[in-house]
Every structure is written in C-alpha cells, then in structure tokens.
C-alpha cells in the first residue's frame, strides 16, 4: 500500500475496487487488526486498529475472501460458538443463531456439517457468522468471488438488508457490476495506489462522454487509431488489449462516421459497440488498463454439494 488515504462515512456501503494483487485484501486485513500497518494509521469508529485492536474487534464483523468455516461443525453449532465467543449466553446464542440462519435462508441445512455445503451456502453462513454481534461495521472481502449469478444476487440482497439496518459496509470486489449495484461510494486501487474515489455515478459522469469500444480482432491498432484521429467529438483514444476505447461526445451519432473511416482505410475490425461510461472505463481512463475480470465460477454456486 502506498499513500492511501480513505475515509468511509457511517452508514454507507463503500466499495474498494481493484484487480487481483492490487492490495485490497492487505488493506482489509490491516483494518480488521489481522495485520499491523507497516506505516500510517487506521481508525475504526475513532479507535486505532493497531493499538486498540481488542475494542475494534468488538465493533466489526468480518467475512474474508477465504471462507473461514470449520468443516466439522454444523451451521448451527458454528454460529452458536461464534455467539459464545462474542460473549452471549447459550440461550441468547441459540436464539441469535436461529435468527441468522433464517436471514441467510439456511434453516433447513442448519444441522448438517458445513463441509457438505455448496459455495453459495458457505458464503452465506460465513456472512451470518460475521453478523452474530450485530456489528456497526462489516468488512466483506470479495464476498461473491466464485459464485454463480443467483448466489451473488442473494448475497447482494443480504448486504443491502444489513446496511438498511444501519451497518457501515466496507466491501472489496473485482466485479464492477457489484460495486455499481451496491456501493454508495467506491475507491479504485491499482498496484497499491488509489487511482479514483467517489460515487459510481459521479466517477462515470466525470468521463463526460460515451465510450465506443472497438474490438480489433487482429486489426492493426496504430492504423485503426490513425484512421479515427480527428473524429468529431473525440476526446481521446485509449488502447486496450486487442481493442480501442474511443471517448466521444455522441457515441451513437459517431458510429456511421467511424465505419466510413475504417472502410476508407480498408481496416476490418471485429466489433463496434457504444455504451455509457462504466466503472471499468473509469479504471481504464485512470490506468490505461481494463479491470473487468471474467465471470468465472468455480462450481460453487449450486444449492448443495454431495
């Protein structure tokens, strides 16, 4: 991490975005007191994460990227133990575990060992375990990585519900759609450096143009770029991987002219598409690279495993 300075207001869902290896998990581990900051300070609710770790831990709930479940215990046992570790009596623990199992829709699977849970079920149980003490601040480190779209949406619903009850949520993700969907504000990090911060709509509005994405599919980037220079309303062209992004004032209105110019230059490209700016375009503008990762799921999404 290099010189990151962030402040997250109470009650918000704050997104911390960046590619793999950007430093998101390290930041979360520092804020959760698992790693000491090598320099600088982190304050949670006014408490120093390094010097007042025990007090910080009482106030935060944490679901790390690596799902921390004990495979030997049932979902209910795991939550009841977690309640006990947060100082609840056995009766309160049983009641709270029941409430949370219902909230994450795992009541039916509550008395089965967690090793038989699917990826989506494990994520939801891990989220429930982070909520036993009704934390004021919830850290979610890539809570939907590896999940299928329907499991991802369930997690989103739960995050909204938790936030609706007043908790501040600090969420890391590499999915831009997730940040766009959930977050009040986002910070984009790349290689340990903060490259953009603000509300998703604000960040996208700052670009101020439409984006015409050209998939080159083998066409010469320099030749394509040369053919399109001087296009009406063109602010800039950013190179991508076998693609070009044209930031233009009127994307739809420019398509005819773009096709005409490419035709004249006898350049054949794979695809041309127009979109409003996305957070990926914000990242592209700041770093010259695309952030969007593939929607890979590692077979974790189904409701149950053998």
């Amino acid at each position, binding site marked *: 991490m290099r010189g990151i300075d962030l402040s997250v207001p109470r009650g918000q869902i704050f997104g911390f975005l960046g590619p793999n290896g950007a430093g998101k998990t390290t930041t979360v581990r520092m804020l*959760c*007191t*698992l*790693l*000491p900051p090598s320099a600088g300070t982190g304050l949670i609710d006014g408490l120093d994460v390094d010097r007042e770790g*025990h007090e910080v*831990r*009482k106030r*935060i709930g*944490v679901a*790390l990227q*690596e*799902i*921390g*479940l*004990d*495979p*030997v*215990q049932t979902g209910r*046992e795991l939550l009841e*133990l*977690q309640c*006990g*570790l*947060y*100082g609840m009596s056995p009766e309160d623990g049983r009641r709270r575990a029941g409430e949370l199992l219902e909230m994450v829709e795992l009541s039916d699977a509550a008395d089965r*060992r967690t090793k038989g849970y699917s990826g989506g079920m494990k994520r939801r149980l891990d989220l429930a*375990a982070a909520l036993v003490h009704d934390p004021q601040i919830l850290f979610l480190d890539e809570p939907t990585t590896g999940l299928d779209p329907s499991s991802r949406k369930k997690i989103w619903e739960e995050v909204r519900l938790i936030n609706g009850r007043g908790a501040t949520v600090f969420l890391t993700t590499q999915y831009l759609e997730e940040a766009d969907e959930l977050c009040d504000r986002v910070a984009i990090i790349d290689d340990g450096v903060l490259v953009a911060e603000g509300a998703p709509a604000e960040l996208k509005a700052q670009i101020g143009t439409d984006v015409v994405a050209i998939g080159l599919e083998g066409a010469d980037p320099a030749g394509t770029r040369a053919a399109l220079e001087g296009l009406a309303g063109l602010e800039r062209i950013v190179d991508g991987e076998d693609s070009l992004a044209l930031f233009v004032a009127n994307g739809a209105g420019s398509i005819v002219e773009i096709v005409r110019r490419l035709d004249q230059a006898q350049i054949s490209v794979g695809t041309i598409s127009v979109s409003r700016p996305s957070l990926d375009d914000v990242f592209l503008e700041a770093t010259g690279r695309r952030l969007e990762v593939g929607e890979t799921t590692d077979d974790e999404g189904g409701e149950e495993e053998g």
Partner: protein
Amino acid sequence: MVGQISLLGKRALRETIRYPEATIPVLFIPLFFLAVNIGQVSETFPSSTPFLNGQGYVAFQLPVSLMFAVATATSGLALVTEIENGYFDKLLVAPIHRASIIYGRLVADFARGVGGAALVLLAGIAFGAHVEAGILGAIVLIVLAALFGVAYAGFGILIALRTRNVQATNTSFLIFFPLLFLTPNFVPFELLTPLMETLARINPVSYVIVGLRSLIIDGWEWDQLAACLGVILAMGAVLTLLSLRAIRDYDRD
C-alpha cells in the same frame, strides 16, 4: 477467558468425536507395541526378574504404551488445518484472548489423554498387569499420562504456528523417537549400555517413564513421582509459553 477456553475446548473435543479415523490409529499403535513387545521378550524377562517385582513384563512396558497413546500431534494438525482453511483468521478477528485458542486445544488434549490412557491401562490389565499403587494410583497414572500428552502437544502447536504447514507439523512426531526411545523403556537404567545409560539419564522424559512405572511396579515412590511431575510441568510450561508467544506474534512479527 475461562468461558472462551471452555467453548473452544468443547469444539476441539467434538472434532475428536466426529473424526474417529484420526484417533483410532493413535490408539492402535500403543496397543500393537504393547502386544508385540510382551510377545517377544516376556520369556526373557519372567516375573522372577528382579526389576519386575513379581509382575509380568507387561507392567514394565505399560508406561511406554501410555505415553505412546497420549503423545500426539493431533492439536498441531488441527490448528494448521484451521490456518489453511481460514477458520483460524475467524477466531483471531473475534474479540477473544488469543491464548484461549491454545488453551482450548490443550483442554481437549487432556480429555483425549485421559480417554486414551484409560483404554491402554485397561488393555495392560487385561494382559496381566496390575497397579501396585491401587485404584488411586491408577487414577494418578492416567492423569499424569494425560498431562504428559498436554505438555507434548506443545511441540505440534508450536510447529503449526511457526510453519503454517501441514507436512512440517506432521513431522513433529519425529521428536517422539529420541524422546521416548533414549530412555529406560525396555530395561532399567542400570542394564543399558554406558552410552545409552548416559543419554537416557540426560533425557528428562526418562523420569516420566520411571515415575509412571513406579506406580505400577513399586507403589507410591514419592521422589520418583515428584521427578515425573516436575518434568511434565517444566516441559508443559516451556512449550505452552513458546506456543503462547507464537500465537501472540502471529502475523505481527
């Protein structure tokens, strides 16, 4: 902290009950050694042998088997598995004393040790041994063996926390061989070769074996029991302190 230790200890015991495949081999080995050793040398050392005090050779071997039964890397392996699957982080991020994670494991080690030692003692009795110090002596024997198991568990826990590696933690059983075999495990000190006698007398674990054996063969030999307890407490204190320091400094040094 007592509540946290109790919760984590119960969880560790639940783990033992639900994974019998991890416990059964641990108990099979001492019973196997006991049967084989008796079968091989009981005629060499008949009950008229002076150091057997009228009992069969099984009585002499029984303490070694008891220590086999309790000296395991179970806690270390469970801990390193937890580190690998991420549950350990979940515990570290809870507002609990880090030490309770270690003590919870040791509580379970004690309970497992009591169960394992009782089973091996019953097997020894079935093979013809009796405890000269009586029923109370048998209880003390089981408790001392279980405490030795708690002390020994520190090796596995320490290696687990320092290496965070299952294979490395698994190899902690290698410590077992010099500790338990450079001792008067087959014959008394006086009958060992001079070199082996010197090594055995240096090895503190010898005094644990001698102390446990005294309850079975001789009755209440207070000096030998005091040495046995002293070694167990010292070993337990050193390894537990090192483990507590390792968990305190985990990801912080």
